[in-house]
């Protein structure tokens, strides 16, 4: 394990950014979001970013290809730009887990090469939690918030950042900044981990009962009357889906240019009225049906198809950002199992 004093950390950003595009949780206009680091930016580690780091691998909009018309010929232009290697710094354990969920979707056959390119190019530096919040539900989804699964794991204790490489990519990154790091033992980090685990026990949403969410109960849960009440105040906005680190639905759209068409994909939201609309019509006509889709997907359909893995990592963004304060915790408590009070 290595370490560096936080007072010297901008030097570390500087060295990394000479070699890679460096993304970190940066505070701009009062809010913290992952953004490209340049000298003088304020990096903030003790707040949750509004947007999740999924943007790095699955951007909100992405050009796919263009069609250019000239007379009677149509030229197809590949708009893909291969992404140069980049580093994402300060990714919390829940968000690290979200990449595993997204990999299941985009790296399964047929592989999404746009996503694959970014995954291969990205080096993730995870950051262990030391002060989780009441909206944190990661433990309910099998995430250990003291063990970020990433290329490098890091911890901040007493004004120092501790770093440990996990993968070859991580080793390569640490060798780049080796001159700035000194050897360290893990005593202080271990102490912090133990302390965080004690805090977790006091958090109200870290032990949700999800035993009822099994494929066998699919129809029964789908037909629950409770969905009406849970969704009645839903504004049908896309906040929960757009701040979510694992929501992965997208739409493919055409933008008409002067001499052709630009085809791009952008995030979709099951909360929106035209979600999965087809020429034959709209399979989910009411907001209740669309609301239900979101939670059934995360808690029942996805695990049924992915060895029991939920497509929620318990980051709690939906709980803190929903305009009407409806969220996955309330759904689980209503429908998840007997042991939710």
């Amino acid at each position, binding site marked *: 394990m290595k370490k560096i004093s936080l007072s010297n950390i901008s030097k570390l950003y500087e060295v990394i950014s000479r070699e890679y595009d460096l993304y970190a949780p940066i505070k*701009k*206009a*009062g*809010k913290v*979001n992952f953004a490209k680091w340049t000298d003088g930016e304020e990096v903030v580690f*003790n707040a949750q970013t*509004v*947007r999740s780091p999924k943007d790095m691998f699955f951007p*909100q*909009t992405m050009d796919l290809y263009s069609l250019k018309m000239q007379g009677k010929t149509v030229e197809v232009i590949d708009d893909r730009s291969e992404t140069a290697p980049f580093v994402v710094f300060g990714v919390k354990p829940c968000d690290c887990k979200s990449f595993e969920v997204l990999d299941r979707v985009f790296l399964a056959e047929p592989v999404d090469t746009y996503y694959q390119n970014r995954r291969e190019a990205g080096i993730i530096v995870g950051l262990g939690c030391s*002060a*989780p*919040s*009441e909206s944190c539900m990661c433990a309910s989804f099998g995430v250990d918030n003291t063990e970020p699964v990433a290329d490098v794991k890091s911890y901040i204790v007493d004004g120092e950042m501790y770093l440990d490489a996990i993968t070859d990519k991580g080793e390569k990154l640490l060798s780049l900044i080796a001159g700035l790091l000194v050897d360290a033992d893990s005593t202080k980090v271990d102490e912090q981990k133990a302390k965080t685990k004690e*805090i977790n026990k*006091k*958090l*109200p*949403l870290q032990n949700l009962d999800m035993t009822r969410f099994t494929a066998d109960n699919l129809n029964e849960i789908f037909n629950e009357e409770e969905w009406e*009440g849970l969704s*009645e*105040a839903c*504004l*049908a*906005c*896309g*906040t929960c*889906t*757009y*701040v979510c680190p694992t929501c992965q639905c997208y*739409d493919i*759209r055409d*933008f008409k240019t002067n001499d052709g068409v630009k085809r*791009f994909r*952008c*995030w*979709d*939201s099951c909360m*929106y*009225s*035209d979600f999965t*609309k087809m020429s034959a019509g709209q399979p989910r006509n009411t907001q209740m049906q669309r609301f239900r889709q979101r939670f059934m997907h995360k808690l029942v359909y996805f695990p049924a198809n992915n060895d029991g893995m939920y497509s929620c990592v318990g980051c709690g963004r939906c*709980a*803190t*950002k929903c*305009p*009407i*304060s*409806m*969220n996955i*915790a*309330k759904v689980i*408590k209503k429908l998840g199992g007997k042991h939710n009070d």
Partner: protein
Amino acid sequence: MQVSDIKKKASEMLLSGEVKRVIGWKKGEFDYDLTPATFESVEELEDFVYDGFCGANLSKYLIKESKKEGKTLVFMKPCDTYSFNQLLKEHRIVRDNVYVVAIDCEGKLDIDKIKSKGIKGILSVKEDGDEVIIDTIYGESKVVKGEVMLEKCLTCKSKEHVAYDESMAQGVENVSLDRFSEVAKLEAMTADERYEFWRGELSKCIRCNACRNVCPACSCVKCVFDNDASGVSAKSNANEFEESMFHIIRAFHVAGRCTDCGECSRVCPQHIPLHLINRKFIKDINTLYGEYQAGADVDSRGPLTNYTTDDLDPSDIFGGNK
């Protein structure tokens, strides 16, 4: 006015059959995550709450609820009644199907402002006069209420209701700041500074549409941005131009109808001060056509839908070409 009185009122009206349902706020997992809800029985009213976190404006829900069979009882804060009037004026609510009970409001709290003070692990939030006491797993914190109130409450329009069938309000002293002072600050900037300010704010937009969907003035059955046939439908901001234009177009569409309820800024996950765009329009409308408050009544013609030969041309005041 006690919460127990409000609940009692709701129970009585449900039991007597005068109303079929009640719209109010339902308790959440924590003290601060209340959800707007309908209550159809006395048992359901167990979860009814009215406290510092009832910032949500309930008037827009009446578009749907007032079309249901039977009467709906709704509890409204003063600012909610302006939105209610404006929706009546636009024929969006069936008035006969609604029973409005006016309740007091002493200003609502913003949990994000509390959290931005570094307070996390929140177990409970209690108001004690001008103080807010927050108990967390990391210890207790006390903050001054004025520092953690919703933006919309800091510049409260009025503590008086402009519409109701019955009032339970006992009156609260009006303590609002000048709501146009922030607009004046923006006007004092150079065009470049102002552009920078708005680019910084609007570049955070994730296009979740929360501002639009919560807005009582945005009551189109199908928004042009959701309509594939419109040619301008979009699910995301493809570039800086779209980030800005979505909000500017929306502000134009609600100009003259926006009551300044402040819900747009309250719900924005990125805390973009969207209400300032609307307030700029309100300020300009006041300057051009005389003081006007949307939602203050149900009968008057709005300044932008009314033409008189005395109307000024904007260039008479703001300069530029006619």
